[in-house]
């Protein structure tokens, strides 16, 4: 089959539908290795889109390659928790063995090694993706063995199966993880109630979004249900946000691995309430390995008459598609996610209008977190009264925490809302803890004096990340890792975030090189104030949170790195003469510059 025939076959499978461009690009790349200019031209023709649109999408996502990246692409998860488990040294060792520079493709086009944002394996790192398949628990011996397999060009499918093992590590179960529902039970109860009463139950249960922001799920569903569809394609849609990209968060991965029925059932209940016939699960590209299992779970549900038409003998019709992302944290933002579902770069939309009135294909769309949808099943099955007995006044039910970092038992912990940070630390076996980063880099850094604070919307809201740092950790390096993350993940749409995240990263690197001064710290505060108010979406608005928190709570970690109290140059002055020294062969005193001023 020629490349053109192959591309055409992929596009045909997606009915030439441009909104499926993400899937078309991924499937094409899985076969051809990369997306060449000619490939993009062919795809654009086949879906009848302007070529620049196709290229714009292709070069937005980290996992699409418009340049050859090697037959083996190794990506090291670069979350701080991976680093704490030694990922930096392991990656260096791998590059050394392969005679490679990070980010470069080997001369023979065989392999490239680079970093990627957190892959959601924080409780079993250091983690890598090899050709977008997840591998956990890297060790020096695995690195050595992997290099051998790459050199010998052994297909990734033939690599040791245990490398690809991903554990759930469920350490504490509560109402959700210990549920006793059988597939169809919650949906059956919802169908019996009907959409109106089901909505009322959700509202009475005071269920709130588990993605961190805590918007009322009932309110969201109601707004979507009440919004009219538009034009010829009038419809309502349910989207499950499984783009779990916040570093340190991995609870959705566990829900999708072992509780997929609950998630799909929650989507169906949402469909019933809002009047949707179609649901879409947006799965982050890092969880590509879950795709086949999820597809087969959907097939089982279809066979059991839990999806499709006349569901459980009712008039309700609903089905679910899975869309795979391609490495872009920003797609966790609901309007960016919808853009991505439509085949476009994941750029957050101007809001209002909100997705509940104009979302996917401009139609009313409810976008809900994986955990929220799963929780809705409990409400459907057991009623709002029972549900609202759990948790606190404003935070009913339970929360899944993804615990990682310096503790004996990392993994998934489910608690009723209201649990203290201290309790979680005790349960996971964290000793000598100096700080916890809750809800990821965009969340909050909680220091020792605040460990009696509670996980609840009243106090500390969270999407679930709970990264523990003991006293040996350097909180400046933690914040610097997060600054790099945001600079890498900024979509580049708005000025404050596009430029600001990189300015912040550069300032943090300058301080790390011990070339900083108090002036640079003032600059960080100034950038924080600007980005927080002026950015287009939550990413830019919260990108300086970890800097702001650590500057306030761990300021000495910054100060001890400062070069002096004076203004310091932006760059290494002596290094700036390196090329001229090399070209002239000079090494006399005049061929050097001191980095400190002479006077």
């Amino acid at each position, binding site marked *: 089959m020629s490349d053109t025939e192959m591309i055409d076959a992929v596009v045909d499978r997606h009915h030439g539908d441009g909104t499926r461009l993400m899937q078309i690009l991924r499937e094409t790349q899985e076969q051809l290795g990369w997306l060449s200019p000619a490939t993009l031209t062919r795809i654009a023709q086949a879906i009848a889109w302007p070529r620049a649109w196709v290229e714009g999408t292709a070069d*937005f996502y980290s996992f699409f390659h418009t340049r050859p990246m090697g037959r083996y692409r190794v990506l090291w998860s670069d979350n701080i928790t991976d680093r704490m488990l030694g990922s930096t040294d392991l990656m260096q060792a791998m590059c050394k063995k392969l005679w490679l520079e990070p980010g470069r493709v080997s001369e023979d086009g065989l392999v490239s090694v680079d970093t990627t944002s957190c892959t959601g394996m924080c409780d079993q790192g250091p983690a890598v993706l090899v050709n977008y398949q997840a591998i956990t628990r890297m060790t020096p011996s695995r690195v050595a063995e992997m290099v051998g397999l790459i050199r010998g060009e052994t297909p990734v499918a033939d690599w040791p199966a245990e490398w690809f093992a991903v554990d759930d590590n469920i350490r504490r179960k509560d109402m959700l993880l210990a549920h006793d529902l059988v597939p169809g039970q919650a949906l059956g109860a919802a169908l019996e109630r009907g959409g109106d009463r089901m909505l009322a139950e959700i509202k009475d249960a005071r269920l709130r979004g588990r993605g961190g922001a805590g918007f009322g799920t009932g309110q969201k569903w109601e707004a979507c249900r009440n919004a009219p569809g538009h034009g010829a394609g009038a419809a309502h849609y349910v989207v499950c946000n499984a783009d779990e990209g916040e570093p340190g968060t991995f609870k959705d991965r566990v829900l999708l691995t072992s509780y997929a029925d609950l998630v799909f059932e929650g989507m169906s209940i949402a469909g019933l309430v809002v009047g949707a016939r179609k649901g879409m699960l947006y799965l982050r590209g890092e969880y590509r390995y879950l795709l086949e299992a999820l597809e087969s779970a959907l097939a089982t549900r279809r066979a059991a008459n839990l999806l499709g038409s006349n569901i459980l003998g009712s008039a309700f019709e609903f089905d679910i598609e899975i869309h795979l992302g391609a490495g872009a944290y920003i797609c966790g933002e609901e309007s960016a996610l919808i853009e991505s579902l439509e085949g476009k770069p994941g750029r957050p939309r101007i809001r209002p209008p909100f997705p509940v009135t104009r979302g996917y294909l401009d139609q009313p769309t409810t976008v809900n977190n994986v955990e929220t949808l799963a929780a809705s099943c409990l409400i459907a099955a057991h009623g709002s009264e029972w549900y609202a007995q759990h948790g606190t006044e404003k935070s009913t039910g339970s929360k899944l925490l993804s615990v990682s970092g310096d503790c004996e038992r990392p993994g998934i912990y489910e608690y009723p809302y209201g649990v203290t940070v201290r309790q979680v630390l005790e349960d996971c076996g964290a000793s000598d803890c100096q700080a916890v980063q809750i809800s990821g880099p965009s969340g909050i850094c909680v220091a020792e004096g605040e460990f009696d604070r509670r996980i609840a919307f009243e106090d500390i809201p969270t999407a679930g990340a709970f990264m523990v740092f003991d006293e040996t950790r350097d909180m400046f390096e933690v914040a610097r890792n997060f600054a790099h993350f945001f*600079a890498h993940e*900024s979509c580049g749409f708005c000025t404050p975030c596009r430029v600001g995240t990189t300015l912040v990263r550069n300032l943090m690197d300058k301080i790390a090189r011990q070339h900083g001064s108090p002036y640079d710290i003032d600059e960080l505060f100034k950038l924080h104030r600007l980005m927080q108010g002026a950015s287009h979406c939550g990413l830019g608005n919260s990108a300086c949170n970890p800097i702001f928190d650590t500057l306030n709570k761990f300021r000495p970690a910054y100060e001890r790195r400062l070069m002096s109290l004076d203004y310091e140059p932006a760059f290494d002055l002596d290094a700036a003469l390196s090329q001229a020294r090399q070209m002239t062969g000079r090494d006399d005193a005049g061929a050097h510059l001191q980095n400190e001023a002479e006077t």
Partner: protein
Amino acid sequence: MKTSKSEVSVQANAREARVKADRPAETKANNIFQLDGEDVPFTPGQTIMQAATANGTYIPHLCWHPDFSAHGSCKLCTVKVNGHFGSSCTIEAQPGMEVENRTMELDDKRRTLLQMLFVEGNHFCPSCEKSGNCTLQATAYELNMMSPHFDMFYPDRPVDASHPDILLDFNRCIMCALCVAASRDVDGKNIFAMGGRGLLGRRVHISSESGKLADTDFAATDRAASICPVGVILPKRKGFAIPIGQRTYDLAPISRQVKKATP
């Protein structure tokens, strides 16, 4: 100094006259909001920016253009609406809204945003044909930007001289996407699209396999050829045509040249 009663009424009359002249017939008397303390009338559905522009009031902006739908990316038009920051080009005007525009706080933020744009690209005004007619430059003058403040990025960006009539110099691009909108909405050609990610990745894509403008059906008569607020899309053989002193923003500051939509 106190303002006399007669002066007040003269000002009020003048304002009323202007309001009447610009106010479409259906505008109700209560469709008014406050912009820096001044009454600004609006028609329902208008954004703060649209209403202010119709009123002849300047809100700094770069990516917004009266002929196109809002893009909302430059954030220069950030105002405070009832105490909260927001983009005036995307927020619909509401009766009684209190909007802060040219306050020291907001202009400070805008100046920083401009400095970000200046260090992000390669903006060498003395050698740019657009100098004097450039919205970025004029806005920086308006906001008293004396230096780029931050460390320069000096990015490596391409120049595309392939087209017979048009030069593209992306060193000056501010990612406003007006060329994208003009080519899509007016020319119906979709020659340009925004792509890439982050500071180094963000770019304008050209709709040809070579990436060259010459391999598209772009024409110098396209609306997109004249929309660029900075010196990226330039006609060839026409550089520095207007003498210094007579260029658009030599004549008056940008805040006194509020342009309304093309009828």
